[in-house]
């Protein structure tokens, strides 16, 4: 009887805590397209509205957290100087042109991704996942669990720069109840 009680308790422990059993990991991607960032005084904003993605709408109300994040695409450094690319986010829809305004009102979420002069590099998923910092990731999770609308900017870390992003993609793996 003791063993039966123990097995029952074990089963009960596994079933508790809400929706542990009835949950899954769902992939959502948002196309960022092609972007050229000519320099720190001519930033280019990209509004992300995840509500346009059906998979996100389907799971938004049961969203618990994010299992994975990635920014993907191919980046070309258009100058002969090396550049470290970062991605920043503002919680609202914005269109800053100046880097200083962005840094005053946004949060860095990703990077740096290094490119040598005139280099073109594809950002692979594993590398990209490792480039999210904790603060930025927390802010991004907050937005995805919130209204699902935010603005992304890609910038260089220092000096003058000019780079292009080809076929940019924002990918999130939602951890949600069924």
């Amino acid at each position: 009887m003791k063993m039966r009680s123990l097995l029952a308790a074990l089963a009960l422990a596994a079933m508790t805590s809400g929706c542990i059993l009835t949950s899954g990991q769902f992939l959502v991607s948002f196309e960022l397209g092609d972007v050229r960032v000519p320099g720190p005084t001519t930033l280019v904003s990209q509004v992300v509205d995840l509500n346009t993605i059906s998979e996100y709408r389907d799971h938004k109300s049961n969203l618990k957290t994010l299992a994975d994040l990635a920014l993907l695409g191919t980046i070309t450094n258009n100058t002969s100087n090396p550049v470290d690319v970062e991605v920043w986010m503002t919680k609202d829809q914005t269109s800053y042109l100046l880097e200083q305004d962005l840094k005053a009102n946004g949060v860095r979420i990703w990077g740096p991704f290094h490119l040598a002069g005139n280099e073109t590099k594809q950002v692979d998923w594993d590398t990209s996942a490792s480039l999210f910092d904790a603060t930025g990731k927390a802010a991004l999770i907050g937005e995805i669990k919130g209204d699902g609308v935010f603005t992304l900017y890609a910038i260089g870390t220092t000096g003058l720069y000019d780079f292009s992003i080809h076929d940019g993609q924002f990918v999130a793996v939602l951890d949600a109840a069924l």
Partner: protein
Amino acid sequence: MRAAPRVRALVLALLLPLVPATAHAVDIGIAAFGGTSIPIVQEDVKTGGTYGVRVPVSIIPLVSVEPFFASSNLSDGEETLGGVTYTRDGFQNSTFGVNAMLGSLANAPGIKFYPYLGIASTKLTRSGSDDIKEVSYNFGLGAGLGFKRVALHGRAELNMVKTDLTSRKFANLTLGLSYDLFKKL
């Protein structure tokens, strides 16, 4: 980290039947197994192989416990975006735990079926992400075909790794061979 004391307590509780060993029939074996691990409702990882070892112990009538180690190498997730196929590293799943089942796992001629439950400490590792170290639970059904000291075991189980408010779940299908190391009736 919070779950570690709970896992230890439950593992100790499951091993309690070992204490009065001298008063009952004892059977201790060793088993190796391999098979496939299928992610359930996980869009960022794919099916992979699994293998491991178990130490089936039967001491009191109708109850057996089985410490085990299992490892799975899940295949990479794949997604084609903008005409480019991206891959995400599949998890390496390492698990130490114990199963408990009603019925004896002592090898004997014939076929037997045994449902079982288990609890374990699991580590999920993948490139580019922090490791997930959490409690996992097993629920399954096994079938054994015995030949004196050797038996062939097939099992189907649900392995559920608790991850905060949700979980990652795997359906594991394995085939194994066990051998009785020690038997005292």
